């Protein structure tokens, strides 16, 4: 059943991504309901998988890198489902679908050897890990909004905007969405750190310093944006680059957690 849930989620995201490609190829950029529904179904199937894993392990289902990536992709999809319609961020689904699909496929290809009893008996460790991943989800969506910003800004600067220009949201709205998502991610990551301290996790070692580096990068982005030092373009580039770095460091942190 777990495999079926995962396959269902992958198919839904694949449909969403394929539909986007087809629509863009045909010159149609309407932020269709199909995309949103496919993403919602994908998130539902992932939620089903995670609940089965959680019930089996009696813990938050993030016991290996595969599960972590699924949890991350689920977080991104869920945040999109809330943020996208609320901000009227048309086409955000088109940009989010490839990212969640990529994470899902990588997760499927990875071996799924769960470290049984990884979180027991300390719920703070579980909260620490889950909050970190949801924070990554917010950063992931900030990265998506950043990429949308760069595309739209390029369209406006080109003075010969392509049809996609009419369907992408205004850059000010995207900039605002990036800032809020970075804030959400930052607060969640800070809470995750607090949970880590309560769990008496090691305040040294590679895992701690890598995690702190990511936290600091986003803190700098927030301060820079607040002080007016980062224009919309720089903010978009910074969030996209920061998330790329966070994704690269994720397997390293996971590996170091396993040995902690």
């Amino acid at each position, binding site marked *: 059943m777990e495999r079926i849930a995962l396959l269902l989620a992958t198919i839904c995201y694949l449909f969403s991504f394929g539909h986007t490609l087809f629509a863009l190829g045909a*010159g*149609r950029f*309407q932020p269709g309901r199909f995309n949103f529904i496919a993403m919602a179904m994908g998130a539902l199937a992932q939620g089903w998988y995670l609940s089965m894993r959680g019930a089996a392990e009696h813990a938050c289902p993030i016991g290996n890198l595969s599960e972590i990536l699924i949890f991350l992709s689920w977080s991104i999809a869920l945040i999109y489902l809330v943020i996208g319609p609320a901000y009227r961020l048309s086409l955000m689904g088109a940009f989010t679908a490839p990212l969640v699909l990529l994470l899902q496929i990588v997760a499927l290809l990875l071996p799924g050897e769960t470290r049984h009893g990884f979180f027991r008996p300390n719920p703070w460790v579980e909260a620490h890990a889950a909050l970190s991943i949801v924070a990554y989800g917010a950063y992931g969506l900030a990265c998506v909004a950043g990429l949308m910003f760069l595309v*739209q800004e390029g369209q*406006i*600067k080109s*003075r*010969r*905007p392509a*049809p996609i*220009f*009419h369907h*992408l*949201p*205004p*850059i*000010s*709205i995207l900039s605002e969405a990036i800032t809020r998502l970075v804030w959400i991610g930052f607060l969640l990551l800070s809470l995750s750190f607090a949970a880590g301290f309560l769990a008496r996790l090691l305040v040294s070692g590679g895992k701690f310093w890598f995690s702190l580096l990511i936290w600091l990068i986003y803190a700098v982005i927030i301060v820079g944006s607040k*002080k*007016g*030092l*980062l*224009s*919309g*373009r*720089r903010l978009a580039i910074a969030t996209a680059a920061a998330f790329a770095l966070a994704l690269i460091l994720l397997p390293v942190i996971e590996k170091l957690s396993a040995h902690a």
Partner: protein
Amino acid sequence: MNILCAGLNHRMAHIDVRERFAVRETEMGEMLRRLRQIEGVTGAVMLSTCNRVELYASSLCPLRALEGFQMILADRAGFEAPLYHHDTPRAVRHLFRVASGLDSMVIGETEILGQVKKAYAVAAEAGSATRPLHKLFQHAFRVAKSVRTETQITSGPTSIGSVAVELAGKIFGSLEDRRVMILGAGEISERTARSLQSRGVRSVIVSNRTYDRAAALAAEIGGMALHFDHWEKGFADIDILISSTNAPHMILTPEKLEPLLKLRRGAPLFVIDLAVPRDADPSINEMDGVFLYDIDSLEQIASQTLDVRRQEVDRCESLIEQHVGGFLSWMRSIHGPEATPFVKKA
């Protein structure tokens, strides 16, 4: 039962003629009453806009209905004008095209749909819309919606003012509380500023070499005048700069803008350069947060939009054709095959 459509539009009649035939909203009730008195007319909807005056009638004898309509219009205007006329199914196709904006002066404009809805509502309220007309107009609204959502016939702006408004919208989102500065009080700047005001811009600063001209324009559009020597002082707070001075040299250069941009704390700036020769150095478009459009680039977008719309016409026509088929099937199921075919008077 037949559906008749007859009237005149911008393609066949000059505005001098159209305005004589136009029916004001207050006169519509009386006009519909007269139309229903024509022999064989069971129901009527009249559409009167600046570009067209059209009758849609359900009639057992379309020829008599046409003659009656012509007489009423001639009586009203004091002279006869040639009218186009269609019966089922061409009348159905015509209304679907009109409601979808395919028959408009600017292809794909959406204002016409509101006008068609209004005409139908007035007729329905006056008890002038029969069952086939109810069905026809409701079907036309669905067709217009489907054409709008399934094709790009309404996409993009088609005039300099609307291009500027759309670009500003894509930079700032809502234009409420955005501040505009006009450098050089020309007519085209004024029109562009008015377009932006119609979308919510409240604060406009006008600066001109002749202060009196700036003050006059500011008073006209509800803005504030500023001496030309001091325009840079207001720069930190503005979002949109419309420039159309007669300066022989460029007044907006990277060297001049760089220190001013620092005061803006990363806020974007939309520069609309309407002057010829240009007021803004094209290289300012490369600066972070600055978006420069000159008159050529604005015109190019408007014409590009119309090209896209023209390319979409075939797709719209085929969508409309499907709907015409659907409507005719309904008509046949209720009223049987179309009654007397429309025979043009010899």
